[in-house]
């Protein structure tokens, strides 16, 4: 069975329906890009999958590794191998990055029936992971995301991903606000973490990130549904023709997607 099977998913925020029958299947070893215009429901999809209680699921089903995702709390999903790289990582003044990362790492190890690691063992692990996202160890002593630049926050998300080694990583607009160097570092980190037994969903508005993280499949999300799916060339086509080409069925020229 595929790693993630989304069937006819419907979700809303407050009274506003956002996802209106979304279906998507992701298997191990695959990279999927979910693209779409602003307000199409991309971030909602990411938040719903991660279990944000602010979003209400009103229909459909999602199975993750054969289990009903909606039977699981957010932390259980993470423990089962789901990871969301936030579009807007949350600042937590007062908790050091090192403490947070180790706490998360140990919670996930515990859930897998593995022993917790002590701060020294964890420091060794971090030395290895920090290099992957070109981060300085001084970042570990700072409060989680607190006062981080946009680029530092995104790198910190990928650092967490590197430490937690998820089976399914969802990158929500990870490219937004990044200059080209930071984008490359983040993309390199993601590529290094790619394995035959894990999968990645890249949620993005722009094709730019997909030059670095090459998708196997590209899906266009609009009006709360996947309207079109294809290979990596679809992203280039979208860049060229704009989203209106898919969402209204009429090509409107190369400027529309900008």
């Amino acid at each position, binding site marked *: 069975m595929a790693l993630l099977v989304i069937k006819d998913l419907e979700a809303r925020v407050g009274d506003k329906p956002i996802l209106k029958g979304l279906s998507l299947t992701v298997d191990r070893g695959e990279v999927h890009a979910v693209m779409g215009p602003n307000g199409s429901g991309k971030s909602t999809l990411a938040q719903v999958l*991660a279990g944000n209680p602010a979003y209400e699921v009103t229909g459909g089903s999602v199975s993750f590794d054969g289990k009903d995702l909606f039977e699981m709390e957010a932390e259980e999903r993470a*423990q089962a191998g789901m990871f969301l790289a936030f579009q807007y990582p949350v600042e*937590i003044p007062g908790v050091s990055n090192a403490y947070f990362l180790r706490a998360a790492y140990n919670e996930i190890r515990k859930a897998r029936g593995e022993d917790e690691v002590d701060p020294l063992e964890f420091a060794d692990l971090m030395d290895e992971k920090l290099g992957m996202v070109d981060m300085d160890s001084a970042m570990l002593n700072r409060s989680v995301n607190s006062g981080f630049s946009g680029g530092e926050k995104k790198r910190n998300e990928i650092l967490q991903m590197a430490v937690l080694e998820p089976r399914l990583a969802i990158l929500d607009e990870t490219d937004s606000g990044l200059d080209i160097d930071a984008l490359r570092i983040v993309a390199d980190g993601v590529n290094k973490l790619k394995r035959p037994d894990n999968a990645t969903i890249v949620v993005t508005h722009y094709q730019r990130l997909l030059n670095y993280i090459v998708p196997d499949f590209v899906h266009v999300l609009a009006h709360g549904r996947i309207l079109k799916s294809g290979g990596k060339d679809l992203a280039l086509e979208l860049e060229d023709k704009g989203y209106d080409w898919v969402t209204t069925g009429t090509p409107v020229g190369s400027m529309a997607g900008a």
Partner: protein
Amino acid sequence: MTTPVASRGPVESYVDAFDEHSTNASVPSWVQSMRRAAFDRFAALGFPTTKNEDWHFTSTSPIAEQEFVLLDAASGDVRKEELAPFTFGASDWHTMVFVNGRYAAELSDLSKLPKGVKLRDLTSAWTELPDVVDRVGKIASYDTHAFTALNAAFMHDGAVLHVADGVEVAKPIHLVFVTDATAAKGMMHPRSLIMLGRHAKAAVIESYVSTTDAMYLTNAVTEVSLADGATLLHYKMQREAGRAFHVSTTEASQARDSHYISFSLATGGALTRSNIYTTLDGEGAGATLNGLFMLDGQQISDHQTQIVHAKPNCFSRELYKGILDGRSHGVFNGKVYVHPIAQKTDGKQTNKTLLLSDTAQIDTKPQLEIFADDVKCTHGATVGQIDQMALFYLKSRGINQTFARRLLTYAFAADVLETIETEEIRVGLEHMTLERFV
């Protein structure tokens, strides 16, 4: 309806104690006169009621209704090991221990005081440091404050510190006021005096702690005088016994370019009140008043700060945080007065409270009275619960709900603990808070 006269009954119960106390004390005659005057003032004022604006949110009747016995002789049996939880792991600090209100030389260590530093118990200081103790009662006025008057009437022991001009005391000075079971139903009125000379610097910690769960009253007054350019790091650790009452007033007078840096922790006691007052009485002086109160059960804890900007170009910074659980009740009242001549005053006050239960309560009252026109004064108060987005963020990393809530509660406190300059205290309080919530 309660009439003010109702509070006179409790006051009368102090008369006998005062008569006895005032006859057997060997203090200078001016102190005896001050005690008498202070007691008369206390009798006239009575215990404050909630009609008193300064006590609007906190009723003193649980204190007024008790009859406390004055603990003015040495008593108790506290072993050094019992103090270990309160000493921040430091073995080389200058330490004065007071057991049930009286100086305990055998538990203290003043052997390594550097040159230029005089530190005595008040009883000795009356004769040994006459030029220093003549400031006692001159900084903290008992005219309008009943508890300060009560302290002045009954003061019997405490610490007297004098740091000479230009001397920086490298190691912190720890004043430990500890009670044991002997303190049950007793009252203590410690009086301390901290005087720093020009450009002197010191860190002084006052810890109010207990090895017991007895009910007693601590009513402390500490007077602080900072000469030009002096810096005092002043920590108050209120960790009294769970059933105890604690009222304390710290009052500082600051000369030009001095800096008073206060941190007040309140976790103990049934009903506690901490007054922290300072007057910026010289240009360029600054005050940093931070604090953290963490309450649970039925605890009531009240902080009142008062910063008087009496001269131009002074600054003040305040950050107080409260974490309230159970049916606890916290109060924060931050007064800032800016005199007409105090132009270019730069003041900022922040009070943030985290409510962990539906039944906990906070009263927060910023009180700015500004009579100068060219000033920058801001204040802000927030009351809230755990941030849901932060909670989800932690959960999305595999951290369960309970742990995530605790971690965020700790983080709320750690934010103000990070401001503590003395490393042992910062680390000690972070550890204590981590243990409490995580």
